[in-house]
């Protein structure tokens, strides 16, 4: 076996025989990265575009909020509901953010009464509005009120304009009324530290 002639053929093994292995390893790496990504994170087409125009009733208060009121202030828009588990998880973070100077906190209570509760009833009826208002206020009283303004989106039509597909969702709207950031799912300290706060500091 020590004769050099025995080993000679293996030295002539062309390099391309390793190509399938390299290709396979590349594919494994590609799929491994894909597996760690969250399929719920769908890029929002709203980023860089003006926030949708809307008008919604203010919970417990007289009057409506008009999207034109976004102008001139940086606003954090949080879509939530009392039936949403993730909303409770992220609530302490919203409470902390509400102490952030120069940030307007806007809550949109999205479809507080679900289809199963309405059973065909008009979500905009006075009775439904009253029930949703009571529930929204009681929840915020218990868990803390981070919102400067809290609105009721009874039929989910405004949520649809924001492109909501799950709760909670959070948007950052700049002074010019342009959407700069979206997060689907509960806010985490990491998202706030690494994405939201740096963006907030960079906004004029």
């Amino acid at each position, binding site marked *: 076996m020590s004769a050099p002639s025995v080993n000679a053929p293996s030295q002539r093994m062309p390099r391309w025989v390793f190509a399938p292995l390299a290709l396979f390893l590349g594919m494994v790496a590609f799929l491994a990265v894909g597996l760690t990504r969250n399929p719920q994170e769908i890029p929002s087409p709203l980023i860089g575009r003006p926030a949708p125009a809307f008008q919604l009733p203010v919970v417990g208060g007289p009057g409506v909020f008009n999207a034109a009121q976004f102008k001139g202030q940086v606003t954090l828009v949080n879509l939530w509901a009392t039936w949403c*588990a993730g909303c409770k998880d992220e609530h302490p973070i919203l409470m902390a953010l509400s102490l952030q100077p120069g940030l307007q906190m806007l809550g949109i209570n999205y479809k507080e009464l679900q289809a199963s509760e309405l*059973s065909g*009833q008009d979500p905009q009826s006075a009775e439904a509005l009253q029930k949703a208002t009571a529930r929204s206020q009681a929840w915020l009283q218990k868990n803390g009120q981070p919102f400067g303004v809290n609105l009721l989106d009874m039929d989910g039509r405004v949520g649809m304009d924001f*492109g909501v597909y799950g*709760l909670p969702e959070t948007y950052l709207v700049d002074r010019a009324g342009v959407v700069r950031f979206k997060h689907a799912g509960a806010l985490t300290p990491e998202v706030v530290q690494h994405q939201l706060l740096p963006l907030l500091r960079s906004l004029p």
Partner: protein
Amino acid sequence: MTRAVMAWVLASVGLWGSCVGAQVPGSAAHGGVAMPQVQAALPNAGAAVVAHPDAPMSVAVKARWDHIAAELRCLVCQNESLASSNAELAVDLRREVRSLIEQGQSDADIRSFLVSRYGDFVLYKPEVKPVTWLLWFGPFALLLGALAVAWRWMRRTPAAPEPLTDTERERVRQLLES
């Protein structure tokens, strides 16, 4: 890695829960996203204020509906079409699409209504544009590349074996004669 797989499995189970309308305990907390569960809405003659999206359609509306709805993807249950999903958002979007059809909007209008809100993700067949070129043409580019490589390998003339050295020649002679 294991944690990522676990999280992915839990998120999938949570999603599945909200899609089939089953209550999976804690699914919303794991998946981080919750949608209201939908229940079979009974036709309520007394309070029929909200048109039920699954109420019978006129023939003309039905034809257009069939044409467009299967191309639209449900955002909540990502492997279901908008037409077949039971997620509450899908019900809302069906109602919206139906009212757009009834208002006489074109398929392109309806598609752009959804894409401007939810992105290309809602379309099973995203439009061909620079951002989606890789998606549309990537597989064909890969196939062409593979064919080109295979073609080169097949046409490659096998390299002539290196001539034997004198010692090797001597060893061959010895082996043959022994």
